[in-house]
C-alpha cells in the first residue's frame, strides 16, 4: 500500500446489551480496516457480521447501550492530504475517558459508559466531518430520505451546509446538476418532488446525488442495492462504477452481495461474526479457485447459486454446496475461531488451537491477510500482523 489511508479503523468494538439475556451482543468485536485514497474497499458479510455497524460506528451514528467501547478511527480528510498527511485525527478521540471496560479471561464482561458525555464528545469531533468529509448512503433509500421535504430541498441543504455555495438559487442549480450526474431523468421535475413520488431506484440516485453534492473525501455506501429490483440494482451498480471512474471518490462499500463487491471493489474485507476474516485485493479474495483463502470465504463463494451454475467445485446433482449450521450468534461468540463450528477444513494439527484461541489476522502475501491457523501461527494476542 503506497497511498496513504484516508480512513483507518483499528480495534473497533461496538457492543449492544440485551437486557433479556443479560449479555453483550458483540456486533463489532475488534475490527481493523484501512482505505487508501481513491480506492474502493468492499466489506462483505452476512447479516449480523457487523459490517454496517462498523460504518455507523466510524461516523458516530450508533447510540448508547453501550455502543462504541474501544478503538480508534483515524481520518485524514481533504485538508489533511493537502497539508502533507498531517491532518490525521482520531474521530473517536477521548473514547477511553468516557468508557470503562472490565475484562475477565481476556473477554469483556462489564462496561460502564458515560452516555451523555460521550454523545456530546462525538458531536464535537464529528462536526465538519459528517456529510462534509465523509458522506453516507443507506439501504432502503425510500425511508432514508425525509418524506416531508422535497428531494431538491434535501440535496440543496447538503450543498449549502458543506460547500461555499450559500445562495439558494445557485444551490438549486448545483443540485439539479448533481441529479443529472446520477442520471435522474427529468431532474428539474424531480427536484420539486417528494420521495414518495419516486421509485426505489430513483430515491437511491437522489441519495447518491445528495451524498456526493458536498464533495466528500470518503463515501460510505451501506448496502446501496439491497431491496431494489434486479434490473435497477444493476443500474445502480453501473452508476457507482461510473462515478468511481469519473470522480475517483474513495469509497467504503458495504454489502452482502458478493457480485456487487466483485464489480466495484479494489480491495475486499470479508467479515463474519463481528470481525474481519480476510482482507486483501478483490481479485485474490473473490476469485473462486484462487488460494490461499479463508475457509469461510471459499465456502461462502461456493454456496452462491452462480458458483453452482459455473460448475463450481462443490456442485453435485443440482444441490448447492452449503455451509452447515447457523451463522454465529454474536451474543455467544466462542473463545476460539468464530467459524470453527461450521468449518470443514479444520485439520488435526490445528484443531486444538481453533477451539481455544482466536487466530490473528496474519499476512499471507503483501496486502492479503487471513485470520486462520491454516496460514498463520500466531494466536490473536500475539504480534498482530498488518
Amino acid at each position, binding site marked *: 500500500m503506497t497511498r496513504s489511508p484516508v480512513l483507518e479503523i483499528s480495534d473497533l468494538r461496538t*457492543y449492544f*446489551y440485551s*437486557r*433479556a*439475556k*443479560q*449479555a*453483550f451482543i458483540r456486533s463489532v468485536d475488534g475490527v481493523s480496516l484501512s482505505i487508501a485514497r481513491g480506492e474502493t474497499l468492499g466489506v462483505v458479510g452476512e447479516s449480523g457480521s457487523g459490517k454496517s455497524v462498523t460504518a455507523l460506528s466510524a461516523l458516530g451514528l450508533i447510540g*448508547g*447501550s*453501550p455502543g462504541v467501547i474501544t478503538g480508534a478511527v483515524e481520518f485524514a480528510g481533504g485538508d489533511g492530504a493537502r497539508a502533507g498527511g498531517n491532518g490525521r485525527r482520531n474521530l473517536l478521540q477521548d473514547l477511553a475517558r468516557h468508557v470503562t471496560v472490565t475484562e475477565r479471561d481476556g473477554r*469483556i*464482561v*462489564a*462496561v*460502564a*459508559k*458515560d*452516555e451523555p458525555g460521550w454523545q456530546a464528545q462525538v458531536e464535537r469531533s464529528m462536526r465538519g466531518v459528517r456529510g462534509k468529509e465523509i458522506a453516507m448512503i443507506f439501504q432502503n433509500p425510500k425511508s432514508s430520505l425525509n418524506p416531508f421535504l422535497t428531494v431538491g430541498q434535501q440535496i440543496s441543504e447538503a450543498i449549502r451546509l458543506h460547500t461555499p455555495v450559500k445562495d439558494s438559487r445557485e444551490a438549486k442549480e448545483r443540485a439539479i446538476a448533481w441529479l443529472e450526474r446520477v442520471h435522474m431523468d427529468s431532474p428539474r421535475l424531480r427536484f420539486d418532488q417528494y420521495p414518495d413520488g419516486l421509485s426505489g431506484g430513483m430515491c437511491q440516485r437522489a441519495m447518491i446525488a445528495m451524498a456526493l453534492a458536498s464533495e466528500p473525501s470518503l463515501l460510505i455506501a451501506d448496502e446501496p442495492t439491497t431491496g431494489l429490483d434486479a434490473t435497477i440494482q444493476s443500474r445502480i451498480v453501473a452508476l457507482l462504477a461510473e462515478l468511481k471512474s469519473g470522480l475517483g471518490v474513495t469509497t467504503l462499500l458495504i454489502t452482502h452481495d458478493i457480485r456487487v463487491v466483485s464489480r466495484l471493489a479494489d480491495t475486499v474485507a470479508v467479515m463474519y461474526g463481528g470481525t474481519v476474516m480476510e482482507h486483501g485485493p478483490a481479485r485474490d479474495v473473490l476469485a473462486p479457485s484462487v488460494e490461499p483463502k479463508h475457509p469461510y470465504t471459499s465456502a461462502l463463494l461456493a454456496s452462491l447459486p452462480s458458483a453452482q451454475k459455473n460448475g463450481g467445485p462443490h456442485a453435485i446433482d443440482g444441490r448447492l454446496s452449503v455451509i452447515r449450521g447457523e451463522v454465529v450468534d454474536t*451474543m*455467544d*461468540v*466462542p473463545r476460539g475461531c468464530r467459524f470453527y463450528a461450521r468449518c470443514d477444513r479444520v485439520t488435526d494439527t490445528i484443531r486444538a488451537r481453533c477451539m481455544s484461541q482466536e487466530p490473528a489476522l496474519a499476512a499471507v502475501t503483501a496486502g492479503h491477510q487471513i485470520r486462520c491457523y491454516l496460514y498463520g501461527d500466531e494466536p490473536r494476542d500475539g504480534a498482530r500482523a498488518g
Partner: protein
Amino acid sequence: MRRYRQAAGEVGERRERSRWRAATTADLAAVGYGLLVVALVVISYTLGAVGWLPDDPARMDMARLNAPPGPGHALGTDFLGRDMLSRLIVGIQAYFLPGLLAVATSLALGATLGVVAGYRDGRAEALVTYLSNLVDSFPRLVLILLVIAAFRADIYYVMLVVGITGAPAIASLIAGKIQFLRTKSFIEAAHVLGLSTRVIVVKHILWYNCAPLLIIQATLGMGEAILVETSLSYLGFGVQEPTPSWGNMVQAGANYFFHGKFWPSTAPALAILGTILGFHLLGDGLNNILESKSAP
C-alpha cells in the same frame, strides 16, 4: 455512567429471561404499587359489602367534628363527626360494580369493533372508523349530563356511557395489532393453513396477541370510571348524602375547607388520587413490560 454487565456463566445455553425478570425496577415498582391499590380496593369493597367496618359510617360524633386523624378515628371525622375511614371504605361501593360494568362494556364493544375494523377491510372498516370518531366527538362529561337530563341520574346508565365512550380507544389498539399481524402475513398464513375465521380471531388474535392489551386497557378503564364517578358525585349527580362516596365527601368537606378544616375534603381527595394513580401506574407499567417492542 450507565453500567452493563454480562451475566455470569459461559455462553451457549443461556436462556432468555422472562419479560418480568428483564423489566426495569421503575416499571416493577409501578406495577407493584398498582397491584397494592387494586388489592386494597377489592378488600375494602368486600369489607364494605359485608359491613365489617371500624365504625358505623352513619354515627355522628358531635364532640369531634372535622377532626384530624387520631385515636378513635384513624382517619379523623367529617363535618358531622362521622368516621372518615369507614366512610371511605363504604364509598368504594359507589364505583366498584359500576366501574366493572363500564370496563366490561368497553372491552366487549372495543374488541368487537376492533376485530371488525382490523379483520375486514373496506366498508366495515370505514363504518367502525366513523363510529369511533362519532363517539370521540362528545366530551364525555357533557354527554353524561345529557343522559342524566334525559333519563335520570342512575350510575349504571352513566357507566354504560363511560363504557361506550371508552370503546374506540380499545378498538383502535386491537385493529392496530391485527394490522401488525397482517403485515407479517400472519393472518393470511393462518387462513391458508385452513384455520377457521373463528379460531383465528378468538384464539390467535384475541387470546394470544391481545390478552395483555385488554388487561392493560381494563386497568386504565377502571381508573377512568373512578374519575367519572367521583366527578359526578362531586357535582351532585351520583350517590347522595348521607350515603358516602369519595366525590360527595370532597364536596361536603369543601365548605369547611376555607375555614382551615382541610382534612374532611382532603382525605377523600387523597384516596381518589392514590387510587387513580395506582390504576394508571399499573396499566402503564404493564404496558411497558408486556407490550414493549424489545420484548415480543
